[in-house]
């Protein structure tokens, strides 16, 4: 523990060096801007700005601090377009739209933005603290998480889906299956066989998750806006000077705490990142809320705080396997890992011995970055919220332009532009017919993870299905799944019985 504090103080000395501090701030600020563009999340933000940081000839610790700032900034920025425009800023922000956007529509954009900034801050900070204190320990647990444990985790995640049930359970199920079907397009990760690609090279590697999100949500929203405008249903959005209140924080404090931890642990696992973390957090919280969770999806502050705390929690968690083992836990950390190698720094446990100033400087910059982001973001809330006062006739085309920029600038494939338009029409149709899009997204996120890990587990065992319940971890997760499935309804029915009992005894 002493080495942790000694290292941390060395790190703060590096990160608080005026020049580096300046880079943290610059990184956070430009990260927020770039993350606010729909489609450009932390992965692409870091990837795009990495060459600039490299060619600017910065010393390695400064460059990495700058990139970490961008990473965190983009994670924060993702919520802006989710809340204001109902267009997810990145993959991890899909679930932020579910309650964030209804709040904005009720005129509480400021409250939503500021609450999400606070939830992000708490999620981010908790995960950095956990990472500093228990990093190596957690990493050793995480690597033992084997394919059958992932299968158990996916079963847990799909159980959360049961809580997303809308008016018609069959439609929810069909929506999820459609998501899974979309995810099955492309080359099979186990046997290399192409599935449902019809010889189109652009989808040989599968449809990019981002394209699906921007298409279903972004373009779908755009068409809905036009429809409402024509039918005169489009009210001018009220922009109150709302802000997060102490009471809001008290209501959501346990939600934020739980989801920060949940997000962090899911982030630590290699292969699962912000999108899985926010999906599971949202579903679990709705489940835990029980009867009162019915307001989820209509602008419930708990439904906003949960995915926000979780996706920032996972950002810190994803750093654990990278810093301790040199294994990237997510797409973004894979790029940070590449950045480390570019600067001739070898990630992994040796980094703390060989280049402590970089390792600890990076960690310290995450603490500073989180605080800086909260300070930068809260005053910007009013500014962002005012974006909603842009008249619809201008805002609607701008949404399309932003979506095009987001999709095109990363991969430069015009095919993706057609894809988002097609998916947009599909998303609009689904919404018109009373389907919820959240299960579709959940299906896409979890589909490949589920199938690949199931088949991986079976290849390891040579076809023996018992491998799925061999480890204690898997069994523990299944028990947890049963709890989340049965306890909330049980509790609420007991409560109801108690209430009726009380009512009858009073009478």
């Amino acid at each position, binding site marked *: 523990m002493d080495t942790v504090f000694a290292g941390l103080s060395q790190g703060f000395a590096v990160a608080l060096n005026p020049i580096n501090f300046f880079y943290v701030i610059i990184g956070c600020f430009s990260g927020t801007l770039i993350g606010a563009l729909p489609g450009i999340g932390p992965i692409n933000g870091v990837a795009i700005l990495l060459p600039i940081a490299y060619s600017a000839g910065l010393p390695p610790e400064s460059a990495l601090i700058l990139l970490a700032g961008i990473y965190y900034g983009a994670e924060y920025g993702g919520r802006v377009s989710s809340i204001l425009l109902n267009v997810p800023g990145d993959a991890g922000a899909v679930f932020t739209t579910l309650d964030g956007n209804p709040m904005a529509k009720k005129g509480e954009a400021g409250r939503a933005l500021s609450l999400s900034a606070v939830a992000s801050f708490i999620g981010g900070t908790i995960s950095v603290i956990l990472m500093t204190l228990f990093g190596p320990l957690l990493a050793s647990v995480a690597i033992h998480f084997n394919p059958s444990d992932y299968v158990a985790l996916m079963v847990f995640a799909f159980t959360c889906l049961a809580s997303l049930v809308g008016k018609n359970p069959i439609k929810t199920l069909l929506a999820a299956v459609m998501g899974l079907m979309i995810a099955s397009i492309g080359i099979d990760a186990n046997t290399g066989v192409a599935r449902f690609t019809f010889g189109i090279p652009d989808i040989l590697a599968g449809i990019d998750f981002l394209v699906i999100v921007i298409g279903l949500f972004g373009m779908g929203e755009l068409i809905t806006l036009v429809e409402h405008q024509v039918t005169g249903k489009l009210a001018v959005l009220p922009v109150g000077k709302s802000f997060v209140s102490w009471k809001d924080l008290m209501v959501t404090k346990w939600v934020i705490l739980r989801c920060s931890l949940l997000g962090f642990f899911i982030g630590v696992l290699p292969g699962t990142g912000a999108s899985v973390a926010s999906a599971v957090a949202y579903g679990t919280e709705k489940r835990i809320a029980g009867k009162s969770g019915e307001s989820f999806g209509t602008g419930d502050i708990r439904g906003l705080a949960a995915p926000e705390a979780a996706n920032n929690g996972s950002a810190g968690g994803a750093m654990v396997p990278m810093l301790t083992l040199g294994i990237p836990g997510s797409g973004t950390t894979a790029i940070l890992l590449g950045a480390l190698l570019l600067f001739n720094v070898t990630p992994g446990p040796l980094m703390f011995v060989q280049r402590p100033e970089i390792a600890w400087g990076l960690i310290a910059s995450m603490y500073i970055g989180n605080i800086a982001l909260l300070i930068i973001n809260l005053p910007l809330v009013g500014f962002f919220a005012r974006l909603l006062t842009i008249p619809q006739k201008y805002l609607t*085309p701008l949404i399309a332009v932003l979506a*095009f920029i987001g999709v095109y600038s990363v991969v430069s494939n015009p095919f993706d*532009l057609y894809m988002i338009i097609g998916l947009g029409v599909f998303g609009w149709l689904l919404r018109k017919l009373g389907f919820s899009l959240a299960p579709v997204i959940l299906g896409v996120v979890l589909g490949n993870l589920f199938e690949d890990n199931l088949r991986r587990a079976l290849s390891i065992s040579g076809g023996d299905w018992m491998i799925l319940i061999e480890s204690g971890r898997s069994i523990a997760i299944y028990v947890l799944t049963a709890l989340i499935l049965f306890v909330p309804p049980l509790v609420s029915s007991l409560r109801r019985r108690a209430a009726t009992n009380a009512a009858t005894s009073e009478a």
Partner: protein
Amino acid sequence: MADRIFGSIALVISLIYGFIAFTIIKAPFQYDPLGPEAWPRILSVVAALCCLYIIARPDGQKFKVLGHTLTRIALVVFFLSAYAVLFERLGFIVSTALFCGVLSRMLGATAKQSVLFGIASGILGYGLCAGLLDLNLPTGAIFKNLKLL
């Protein structure tokens, strides 16, 4: 009714999906007992059952879109497609200016407003994203050639 139509279309798609999964997808050899085909097969069956249920018991979801609205929506989809087609050919600035101008005009801006808005969003958007954030946006094949000449 809308539910039934959608259910039928979805059913046809699930059946095609299932047909491919049951007949075409096959690995030369595999190390897991499921192979590439088992998962899609399960999905197709579940999807088809869901579709049948929706066709049998539609939940009466109304799909009210007036002809007028539908034309507008079709127009927007057309504009978006045109934007996508022109995006690389004309480059970001010109295609964005056209798209923003036309769509804002349709959504109720005056002619002068929409022209100004189109030009502004094309140029500002490019300056901000390509210049400041160094994102990769198409300059347009036309301009590339002009520069070479």
